[in-house]
């Protein structure tokens, strides 16, 4: 199992080119090879959604994606959200802080990534749309109430930020 495959992935705008064993998941590749530890794994079998990242802008389970499958693609992880220079949090991140959308925080990067994608296409989601978008992410701590509140707060701030339509 030592055959390696040349893989070129853009992560948070930076290009990485590595020799990767085909069996390595994207989650492990991000976490252990690229040292981007903000993408967590909760089950490694596709149910919990804790490993969610954006691949070419769409949410994907990085535990079910092989690193070599991401060859040529653009991946966004939680590390790619805040302002790299000032450290200022992305509005969705800040909304999760302000509306108490987390407890242990292990699921949170995934919820935030799913929310970023949701709000890009739907700036004013109702509860049903939020539940639909986040239905594939498990949180064991919060009971989801404050997560929904965080998404709504983020949506409002992003709408305000982009001005009247």
């Amino acid at each position, binding site marked *: 199992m030592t055959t390696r495959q040349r893989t070129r992935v853009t992560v948070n705008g930076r290009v990485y080119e590595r020799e990767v064993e085909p069996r390595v998941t994207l989650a492990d590749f991000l976490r252990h090879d690229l040292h981007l530890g903000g993408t967590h794994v909760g089950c490694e079998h596709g*149910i919990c959604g804790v490993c969610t990242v954006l691949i070419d802008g769409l949410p994907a389970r990085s535990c079910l994606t092989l690193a070599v499958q991401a060859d040529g693609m653009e991946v966004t992880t939680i590390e790619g959200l805040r302002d790299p220079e000032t450290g200022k949090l992305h509005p969705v991140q800040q909304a999760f802080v302000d509306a108490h959308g987390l407890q242990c*925080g292990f699921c949170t990067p995934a919820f935030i990534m799913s929310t970023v994608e949701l709000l890009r296409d739907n700036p004013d989601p109702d509860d049903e749309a939020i539940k639909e978008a986040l239905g594939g992410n498990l949180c064991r701590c919060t009971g989801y109430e404050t997560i929904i509140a965080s998404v709504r707060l983020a949506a409002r701030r992003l709408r305000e930020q982009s001005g009247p339509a």
Partner: protein
Amino acid sequence: MAREFPRLPEELPTSAVRYVGKEVRRVEDPALVSGSAPFIDNLQLPGMLHCAILRSPHAHARVLKVDASAAEALEGVVAVLTPDDVKRWANAHVTSPPGWGTHCIAIDKVIYVGEPVAAVAATSRHVAEDAIELIDVDYEVLPAVASAPAAIAPDAPVLFEEHGTNVIQKRVYTWGEVDRVFREADHVVTASFRWNRCGANPTETFGCVCQWDLTDNSLVCHGSYQVPGFWGLARSFSLNLPANKVKVVSHPMGGGFGGKGGARGTDIAALLSRKAGGLPVKYIEDRMECLLAGGSQSWDRRYEASLALKADGTITGFDVKLLDDQGATTETYGTISVAKPLAAFTGNYRIEAARYDTTLVVTNRAPVAPYRGYGPPPHFLVLENLVDMAARKLALDPADIRRRNYIRPEQFPYTIPSGNEYDSGDYEAVLDKVLKLADYAALRKEQAAARAEGRLVGISVVNTVEPGVFDWNAYATVGVQGVGVPEGARVSFDVLGNITIVVGFNLQGQGQFTVAAQVAADYFGVDITSVKVTTAATDATPPHFGQGGSRVGVAITGAVLGACQKLEADFKRVVGHIMGGLPPDAIELMDGRLRVKANPAMGMTVAEVAGTMLGRSDLLPPGMEPNPTATSVWTAPGRNMPDEEGRCRSYLTAATATHVVMVEVDRGTGHTSILKYFIVDDCGTRLNPASVEGQLQGAVAQGVGAALLEEYVYDDGANPLVTTFVDYLMPSIHEVPITRRDHIVTPSPVTPLGAKGCGEGAMHTTPAAITCAINDALAPLGIEMTETPATAQRVWMRLKEVGAAR
């Protein structure tokens, strides 16, 4: 002498409390939302190896041979741990009660599916997993004990041959004249209940990185450990090391809810490191290991229980018989969950006599571990369902029968028959408030209308008491010895007046670093951003216990306050001295200034005092050390030895909550929909209200899982049928009701600032509340669900039995 603490936030030395009791943004959150919190799997050490564990495919078998030669020969494998190594280097695990544990990997026989039999350390996890497939194990399969009734059958195979029985402990506690009250009762309600296994399942599984120093035989364990000192002590026993040679570094945890930590995983990684010449070894439990044998299974119980009542609905007796399946060993302290109900045995009620007949057995299922609430969630499911059954029998409203049996506000402090003392409460006020919030009368009308249409709609009104702040005496009766629960904090000022608080536990989600920061910031009148809270390894931290038993919020408040008080005393000496030799009691602390009482314009800020202490020894009173640092270790006052019936003051606080739930059961599928959910609770002072609300709603989610979805299923051969999240159903955003909540505040008279333990919260009440609502829905059919989880399948089968399924 006991320290005097401010009993309410208003008594803090500030004219306007800024943080305690206010909704505060958590100090822990920016790192967590950025993905930069150092969860254990993010730790990489130079030369680090990765561990994979070979686990038993059999529930009960003798291990005849373990041949690891092929694994050892695989490129990248550095060490293989076999039973021989473990025999040589390790002891059987300390258990409660003692003598019901085994080594970290099986030595002579395996006693549950998933028990470790060998382990590999290799240059990558992939190689380690390849290698364990090359290990050759010969087993002689033995007949398995698949359930608790099977464990006590006369011809049952025995797991621990040295004991000659599968019964770990049999004990009957009798409090008051139980036989008499049942003899004299006008009504007796009796039922059997079955609570199937469910468990914690935090989103982060257990993980550790262990490094054995071969020079001085010492060990460092980094990992997701919720009670670091305790885990370290246990390792010193299992690995034959002096306790001060085991250093535990606790990392932030992705949730815990019970036994976050891993005795076997830690010992295995530690011994692999020893065998690998001292290279660090990482072990990250995967989800399947967690579900199979990772301390995520709890509460495998069968109950027979009765209530004795007078004609008017007064409850006089509560008789509980429990058969408890602990799984294969008692190494994970699951026995605690049998003892904890003693702290709140009779719930919110005045019940004069009670009995608790307990039988704890081992079976070839995975060992059970603590889970949020420990023991009371199933116990309250039994009590509250019996109360509802009694209400139906006596044609009383469930709210009314409860109301007439409540402990009344003037009766506190109130000692319950099982010995614990409740500190305070006002149960009727909670009930009234939730009935109003829910518009209970309207709900009942809605229900009547639905019933008239043939729909199965039910409502419950369920209350429980949450024992908070456990102590060493709580679990002595199930053989947990020497669990002291000190909680320490070291508070220090730097030369510029910034505050650092060092505690002995790490983040787990409850926001306790924020609580520590809130208390110190208000005490010294500084901005919360100038307070940093950090955890230290076990060799550098004050005595501590950590999360467990709804106690850290209260305990850390006490510890931080204690340290602040010591600093205040030192600061007063310094300022008095500088202000011309005034005695310390001529100085007072207010809003961050140490000022002269007689002339408040004269004074110094805390930052100035700290800076002076560290920078100008010439200005200090003679003999005073230049050290604006203080350590305080809090523990609950007034704890006592259990008597012969297990009675003692074990849990310091008694929070309460009443839930009103409306459900509908679908005749076609048996599916239960939660239509409405209301909660009013009282946990005294809410230190950070946002965190309290989060604990409540989060525990509702877990309660919904326990009541309706989550179950570890085993077959007749004790083989687990649930090993992935495909079959262990965790509640998603679609299953969890968003509850409507309110609260009252009855401050605890016995805790610093009046807070009560509240971390386990709704887990005590939700499973009972949902099943009671289901049973109200089913009442017109004359059937009851007394088995958890009330899955659609189970309910539908029951409906079918009475011809009510569609």
